[in-house]
C-alpha cells in the first residue's frame, strides 16, 4: 500500500513579528519548520504503515531548501521523499498547488494520501480537498481518529462543529487531519542515519508532465492584490484596585458598551 503524505515547509508564524515602524513582517531569524499539522499527517501515515504492509512517501512542493523538511520526515520513519521544485511552480495559489501535487501523486500512485488540515502560513485548508478533486477520489477532512483500515476501505472519525461523524470511504482516499489524531513521534537514531543517506527525488515540471498554463502564477486564478498590517488594538485599560473594585469597574465598563 502506497501512503503519500503531503508536507509543507513554513515559517514558524508564532515567531513572526511586526516591525511597528514599517508595518512589515520581521522574518529575520524566524525558523522554517514542517507545518505542525503535517507532522500529525506524517505520524498517521507511519501508523497506517505499521498496521498494513505499506510504504510512506513524503511529498513537498517548494524551493530547493525544502529538501530539509523531507529529510526530517525520513528521520521520523518515512521511506522516501520527493521534492517538487521548479521555477514554473512559483507563485502558485491553492488551485495551482493542488493541481501540481495531484500530477505528482498520479505519477507515484497512492492508496491513501494524508495532509495536515491546513498550513499555518496560509491557513486556507483548501489544498487537500482540491487535490482529491483533481485525483477524482473522495476525501475526508478533519480526521481525528483512525478506526479501521482494510485493503479497500477506511473508517475514521471526522470532527464536526458540534461533535463528530463516524465515516467510511473506499480507497483510494485523501484525508486531512487535526492534531487531536495523534502525537508525532521523535526521530530515531536509525531514522537520522537513513535521512542523511536518503536520496531525495527532485521533480520538475517535465517530470510531472503538466501544462505550464496550469502552474505557478500563470495557472493561479487568484492574485494577491496587496498586503497590509491589521489595525493595532486600541483602548487598552488595566483596571485598578482590589479584586472587588476591579470587578465593579469592569462591569460598569461592560454595561457602558451594552455587553451585559
Amino acid at each position, binding site marked *: 500500500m502506497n501512503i503519500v503524505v503531503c508536507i509543507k515547509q513554513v515559517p514558524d508564524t508564532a515567531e513572526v513579528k511586526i516591525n511597528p515602524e514599517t508595518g512589515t513582517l520581521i522574518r529575520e531569524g524566524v525558523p522554517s519548520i514542517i507545518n505542525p499539522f503535517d507532522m500529525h499527517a506524517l505520524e498517521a501515515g507511519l501508523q497506517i504503515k505499521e498496521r498494513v504492509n505499506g510504504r510512506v512517501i513524503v511529498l513537498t512542493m517548494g524551493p530547493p531548501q525544502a529538501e530539509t523538511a523531507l529529510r526530517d520526515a525520513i528521520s521520523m520513519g518515512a521511506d522516501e521523499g520527493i521534492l517538487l521544485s521548479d521555477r514554473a511552480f512559483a507563485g502558485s495559489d491553492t488551485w495551482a498547488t493542488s493541481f501540481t501535487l495531484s500530477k505528482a501523486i498520479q505519477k507515484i500512485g497512492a492508496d491513501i494520501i494524508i495532509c495536515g488540515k491546513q498550513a499555518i502560513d496560509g491557513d486556507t485548508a483548501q489544498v487537500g480537498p482540491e487535490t482529491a478533486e483533481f485525483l477524482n477520489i473522495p476525501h475526508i477532512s478533519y480526521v481525528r481518529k483512525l478506526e479501521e483500515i482494510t485493503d479497500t476501505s477506511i473508517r475514521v472519525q471526522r470532527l464536526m462543529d458540534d*461533535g463528530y461523524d463516524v465515516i467510511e470511504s473506499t480507497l483510494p482516499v485523501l484525508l486531512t487531519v487535526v492534531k487531536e489524531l495523534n502525537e508525532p513521534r521523535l526521530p530515531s537514531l536509525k531514522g537520522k542515519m537513513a535521512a542523511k543517506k536518503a536520496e531525495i527525488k527532485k521533480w520538475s515540471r517535465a517530470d510531472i508532465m503538466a501544462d505550464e498554463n496550469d502552474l505557478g502564477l500563470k495557472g493561479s486564478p487568484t492574485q*494577491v492584490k496587496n498586503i497590509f*498590517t491589521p489595525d493595532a488594538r486600541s483602548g487598552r485599560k488595566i483596571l485598578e484596585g482590589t479584586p472587588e473594585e476591579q470587578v465593579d469597574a469592569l462591569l460598569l465598563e461592560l454595561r457602558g458598551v451594552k455587553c451585559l
Partner: protein
Amino acid sequence: MPVIVNPEKCKGCEECLSSCPFEALVMKEGKASVNEYCQACMACISMCPEGAIIETEREVPIGLDDIHAYKGVWIFAEQRGGKVAPVAYELLGIGRRLADDIGTDLSAVLFGSRQSEARELIRWGADKVYYSSDPIFEHFHDEPYAQLLTSQIMEHHPEIVLAGATFIGRSFFPRVAARLRTGLTADCTSLAIDKETRNLLQIRPAFGGNIMATILCPNYRPQMATVRPRVMKRGRYDESRNGDIIHIKSDGLQSRTKVLQTVKEASDCMINLQEADIIVSGGRGLGDPKGFQLIAELAELLGGAVGSSRAAVDSGWIPYRHQVGQTGKTVCPKVYIACGISGAVQHLVGMQSSDIIIAINKNPEAPIFNVATYGLVGDLYEIVPLMIKKIKETKGLST
C-alpha cells in the same frame, strides 16, 4: 519571476528582506534576489531605497473568454440536522450588500432541510432559493454537495459564490473551485466590490493573523470565497418578502463516503465556540481541571461558550474541541474572557480579533494584557467568583 532585482542598482543593503512576507527575497553574492516563494504581493518594491526592485510584465493568466456573461450573487446556506446554520443569514447580509452594489440578484442554495427553511432564507434577503430535498443530503458528504453545486453553477453562471468558513464549507467548497477551474479565497473577514471591474475584493488574515491580504480573482468566474462566521452582519428580516423557490433536480448523485454514525458531543456548554457571542476561556493558570467548573459557570451565566488554551488541553483538563489558537479554533466573539491564560502568540492569533478582550491574570507582565481591552490583575479564583456573584445580583435586580 513577477518581481526582479536589478543587480546593477542593488547595493546589498538588505532593507528589502524583512518586507517580504513569503521569504522570497534572499541574498546571493551580496545582492538581493527573488526566489520561488514570490507571490507577487509587491510589498518589497517600495522598500528599496535604490529603486532596484521592479515589477516585470505580468504574464496574463489564461482566463475565461467572457467573464461578463456571469451574473448574480449566490450564497450556500449550510444546514445541520435540517436546521440552517446561523452563518447562512450572515452570508445573506453581506451577499445582499454585494448584489445591490453591482445591481444584481441574490440567490441562496439549500441542500437538504425543509422548504420552510428555504422560505426563511427569502425573508432574510434572498431573491431566489435553489433547493434540493434529495435524501442524500441528510448527512454531510463532500462529493454529492460538490457535484450538485458545481452543476448548478455551470447552468446558471453566478459571478460570486460564498459559503461559511465552517467545517462543511471549508471541506467541500475547494472541490467545487477545483472542478470549475476558478479561484477560492479562504476565511474572508471582509468583502467589497470594485465597481469598475465588478471584481470582488476578498480580504483575509494570513500568517496567523499577523498580516491581512486582499485577494482578487480577476480572470475567472465565479469568484468564490468562504467567509468567517460571526464577522458579517445579518441583513434585515422581512416577513412579507417574496421570492422564488426553485426545486432542482439531483439525479445521479453519488458518494464514495458514507456516514455511519453522527455523535453530538455533550459538552458542559452546548454553544458552539465559533458561533458564541461570549467566550470564557481557561488556561494553565487554573492550576487544576476543576477550574473549568468555574469557567463553565461564568460562561453559562453569560450565555457563552467555554474555550481554553493549548496548555489546558495538553494537560488533559478539557477536550481539544475547546482549544482556541493556532492549532485549535479561530474565534471572534463580542466578548472574550481569558482566565489564567498568559497569552502565547499561538493563542493570541486565534482570538485577537474579538471585539472586547478581558484578561484576568496574576502576572501583570503577561502578554495577554497587550491585546486586552480590559485587564484585571489578580487571582482568578478571587475575581471570577466575584464576577459571578455580581452578575447574578444584577440579573436578579433587573428581572
